[in-house]
């Protein structure tokens, strides 16, 4: 699969897409399940509900946000791959976290949910033809390609894993 051209996504997503180094995005998605589980296995018990500054998400909430975003982006890719031109709505990531209960769950359970959601999306994405990958739709008021959405899913996860390493596990 080719990398998305910058014309295939809103400039806002450039930072996420540039984090993706994989030539094979499906393999990148598979590898990331192990990467995320490895990162989580290094989180000490006393850091699970820790936020590095007032008002910041806890590590559990960061993982929850990665899963939320994966569900939203994959749903967009699913609809657009079927040539559905419906304008899809954005989502308020902060409201989604505050209206969920990620801190009441175990980090193990969240890691497990991430893996299941990712596997369910890989099952779909690996069936996509070149034509489906090239489809363009509209989400949150901006045009975007299915290919770009797959790269954003991986790049967004890398971004938040980097934040966990740098801001939460830095000592």
């Amino acid at each position, binding site marked *: 699969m080719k990398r998305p051209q910058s014309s295939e996504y809103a400039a806002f997503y450039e930072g996420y897409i540039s984090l993706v180094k994989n030539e094979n995005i499906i393999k990148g998605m598979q590898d990331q399940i192990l990467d995320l589980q490895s990162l989580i296995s290094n989180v000490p018990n006393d850091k699970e509900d820790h936020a590095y500054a007032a008002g910041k998400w806890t590590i559990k909430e960061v993982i929850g946000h990665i899963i939320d975003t994966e569900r939203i982006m994959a749903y967009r890719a699913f609809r657009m791959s079927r040539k559905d031109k419906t304008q899809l709505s954005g989502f308020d990531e902060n409201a*989604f976290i505050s209206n969920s209960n990620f801190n009441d769950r175990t980090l193990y359970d969240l890691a497990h949910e991430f893996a299941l959601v990712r596997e369910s999306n890989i099952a*779909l994405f690996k069936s996509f033809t070149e034509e489906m990958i090239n489809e363009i739709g509209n989400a949150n008021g901006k045009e975007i390609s299915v290919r770009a959405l797959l790269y954003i899913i991986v790049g967004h996860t890398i971004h938040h894993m980097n934040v966990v390493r740098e801001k939460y596990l830095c000592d």
Partner: protein
Amino acid sequence: MIKRPAPSEYPSFYKGYVDNVKTDNIIKELRDQVLDIQAIISTIPEDKEEYVYAPGKWTIKEIIGHIIDTERVLGYRAMRFARKDKTHLPGYDENEYVAKANFNKQTLYGLSHEFAIVREANLALFKVWDEEALSQVGVANNLDVSVRALLFMIAGHATHHMKVIKTKYLNE
């Protein structure tokens, strides 16, 4: 234990699907269905996989694909509504979605696996919801529906199509 949805929680069009669910324990029903559907799929003879019982009808592979599509759409609605999101969510054209997919090029095993993993991914979300999340109501396809009703519709819709496979395709 999750209560059954009241008829006021879903459009009357969905009553048949909700009524297909005979238990109040919807999480167990959603889990058991993974095994039930795999059991039915395992009885499908190879020469029936792409068979249609009348012109213009979906193949068995396309029916499984449609069950998965619907699970993705309804599961997504349930997630957004459970988070108190009041955005009006669009419907989808189920026939166009099957026509634009390539289910007949996939194996029945692959589709069966995808169904199981999509259901598991949804269960990971549904099983943690409390009464407040399950009672949320949102708007999809211009009609009000509760999170609880969506869970019953997911199970009942899959049951409906598996019955069609048994009666119309496998002549049971």
